[in-house]
């Protein structure tokens, strides 16, 4: 027995599902959805939960995160109710609800999100200003802007921050969706085996290849989405390599003979190559989505929430500033390169600090949901 709540749909409508109440429950969206599978039907049941106000049901549906918004549901909807937008808005709603203390709400209000980003940027800028070293303008040395120790500590703090929040929020989400997750009369050993097996399926098929997304009819969106993801990953690797080149983590290099033998410069070259590739595909992906959202030529780009813009623009800016650093280095405009480096750090800081509460978080939640889904599939197939 569940109780209706008229306010839920009002909330979700505010997050972007404007026309969803026009839905007359025909089921066409669910039947046409390439990702819809038995026991994981989407999106109509999510619409029902939203309209009726069954919040617990909605938040405990992994189906929300199995959707990639291919838009086929919205394209064929006979009432133009845009089920895809509902899924999007419901995910936003879930991000808010899963976030610690509901803090994510800030980032789904246009004004609040901009204000908080400005505040964060000021904090980052202030940090850079306060801890800046004396700039070496004859060459580009990041450590002449901020000391190695500072970057190291800040990075570590951020990593721990992200990990803790991600863990807490992940647990929160898990608590919602767990109701049937690990139940059932499988022997404990099989359970663990299945969990591990499904984890690897998720890692390789979903996290790295987004295989489910490729089932969508429009492959270009899938490619762009994958491009952003891989762009990000590659840039992260490049940044790490670059960092490795310039640092000596815990004095490892001195301690081991093998490491001493490696030409440290190769890290730099690798970082350049990976960085350029990552940057290019990342730029492609983000520009693709920005362009789509600007021209609104298909249903899924028709409506953009402020949070979508912030996310896309931040990613774009992070990559852009990264590129500009290199350009300025090669053109020997070191002052500008330092400025870009600072901007890069600020945008990256914004992106990372807000990540658990913004659209960024969908990556994590989706992985949990897909893990759950793969696990269930294994269980059923048994």
């Amino acid at each position: 027995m569940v109780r209706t709540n008229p306010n839920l749909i009002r909330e979700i409508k505010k997050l972007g599902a404007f026309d969803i109440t026009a839905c007359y429950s025909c089921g066409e969206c669910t039947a046409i959805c390439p990702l819809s599978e038995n026991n994981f039907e989407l999106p109509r049941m999510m619409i029902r939960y939203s309209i009726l106000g069954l919040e617990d049901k909605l938040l405990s549906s992994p189906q929300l995160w199995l959707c990639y918004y291919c838009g086929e549901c919205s394209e064929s909807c006979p009432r133009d109710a845009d089920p895809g937008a509902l899924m999007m808005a419901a995910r936003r709603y879930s991000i808010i609800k899963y976030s610690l203390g509901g803090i994510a709400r800030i980032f789904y209000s246009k004004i609040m999100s901009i204000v908080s980003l400005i505040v964060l940027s000021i904090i980052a800028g202030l940090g850079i200003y306060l801890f800046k070293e004396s700039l070496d303008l004859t060459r580009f040395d990041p450590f002449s802007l901020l000391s190695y120790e500072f970057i190291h500590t800040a990075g570590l703090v951020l990593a721990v921050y992200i990990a803790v929040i991600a863990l807490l929020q992940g647990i929160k989400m898990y608590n919602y969706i767990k109701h049937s997750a690990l139940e059932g009369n499988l022997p404990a050993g099989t359970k663990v085996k299945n969990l591990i097996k499904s984890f690897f399926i998720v890692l390789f098929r979903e996290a790295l290849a987004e295989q489910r997304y490729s089932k969508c009819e429009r492959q270009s969106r899938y490619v762009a989405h994958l491009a952003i993801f891989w762009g990000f990953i590659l840039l992260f690797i490049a940044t790490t390599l670059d960092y490795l080149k310039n640092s000596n983590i815990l004095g490892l290099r001195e301690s081991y003979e093998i490491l001493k033998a490696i030409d440290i410069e190769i890290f730099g070259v690798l970082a350049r190559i990976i960085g350029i590739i990552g940057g290019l595909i990342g730029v492609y992906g983000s520009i693709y989505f920005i362009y789509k959202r600007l021209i609104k030529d298909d249903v899924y780009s028709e409506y953009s929430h402020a949070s979508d813009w912030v996310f896309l623009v931040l990613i774009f800016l992070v990559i852009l500033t990264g590129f500009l650093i290199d350009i300025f280095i090669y053109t020997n405009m070191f002052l500008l390169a330092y400025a870009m480096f600072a901007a890069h750090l600020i945008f990256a800081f914004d992106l990372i600090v807000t990540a658990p509460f913004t659209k960024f978080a969908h990556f994590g939640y989706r992985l949990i949901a897909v893990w759950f889904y793969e696990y269930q599939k294994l269980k059923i197939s048994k």
Partner: protein
Amino acid sequence: MNKLACDVVVIGGGIAGIQASLDLANMNYKVILLDSGPSIGGKMILLSKTFPTLDCASCIATPRMAESTHHPNIKILTYLQIVSIDKHDSSFEIKILKKPRYVDESKCIGCGRCSEVCPVEVPNEYEGGLVPRKAIYIPFPNSLPNVALIDKENCIKCGACERVCPVKAIDRNQKQEEVLIEAKAVIIATGIDLIDYSKKIEYGGGKYVNVLSSYQFERILNATHPYGHILRPSDGKIPRNIGYVLCVGSRDLNWGVKYCSAVCCMYSIKHAIMALHHLHDAEITIYYMDIRTYGKGFEEFYNRAVKEGVKFVRGKVAKIEEDPETKDLFVYLENFDTGKVEIRRHDLVVLAVGIVPTINDSALFKAKLNVYGFIERKLIDVDPASTSIDGIFVAGTAAGPMDIPDTITSASAAAMKAALYIERKG
């Protein structure tokens, strides 16, 4: 140019036009009934049986058609095109172009010998293209006037028909003819057409041969069966498992029309019952969203279908796929009884295609059309036959989707209003 005069011109010789003409003629007004096609009778005469009583459509429509042809106050003109309708102070001037049939209407006795010998075979539009007809043909068995016409596009001028015609009725020298009609009032009864269901690519209508429109299925069920039995077009197999998809184009903003076509639920149930009577052990499944059996005796009819074994499954069919080997079909839907997405196999799938107005040339009719292309009724809540133009009235489905009883009622109402307009007593 020929000139004719009458009290009321009724445009459209379907059952609405016929009813309005008869009512006016019985009130002693002179009526000219126009039909653009080669026969009057409209859509109703082509139906098999009618819901909810299951009496045969031609059994009840033919006498009306005959009555209107014999009525001294009614003159019927068929196979024509309306060129213009002009309103003067107190009268209307309707210019029409009578198209040549290449067969002398007054001589032809409708024996059908000519089509028997004609060598050209083209899809028969009256049978939904399921079977061929000849280049010289009588539209359908009960057509009125029951005379042949030549489809000039496809005629190869072999002369076979002229050779066998017992009354020498074939006249290749016929020219189109302009006729000017003066009338005091006009009734529009132009009726409906089917939505172009090939627009719904996901259903494969027009591509998959075993996906039929409801009209085609109606013909298959007709007493004059084009196939002799209920068979499916791909290979003449007796279908054992028929899927019936409701709301094809209706209630669909995406590619169809916004409104509900008002008749599909009932005719689909009718088809299911009739098919079940013919194919005793067949399984017939109707996929629906809402069953709209709203009229007198309709709900009882629905309950009867359930009792007789017609399966009703709630869920809108999202797409249909064809098995290229067997030409069987798979329909995809979310079944609300199970809450699961299902793919179901059928020998034959029928689409309950919605209806759209026939007229879309508002410039010609000058009466205002509503957003759906139906004639807008001006004073809908006090006078449902009125249009935006004084003296032009609307009858039947030209004003919106409705079933036969409502059509007849609205036709009689339009006749009343036209009579009142002519009398204008107060």
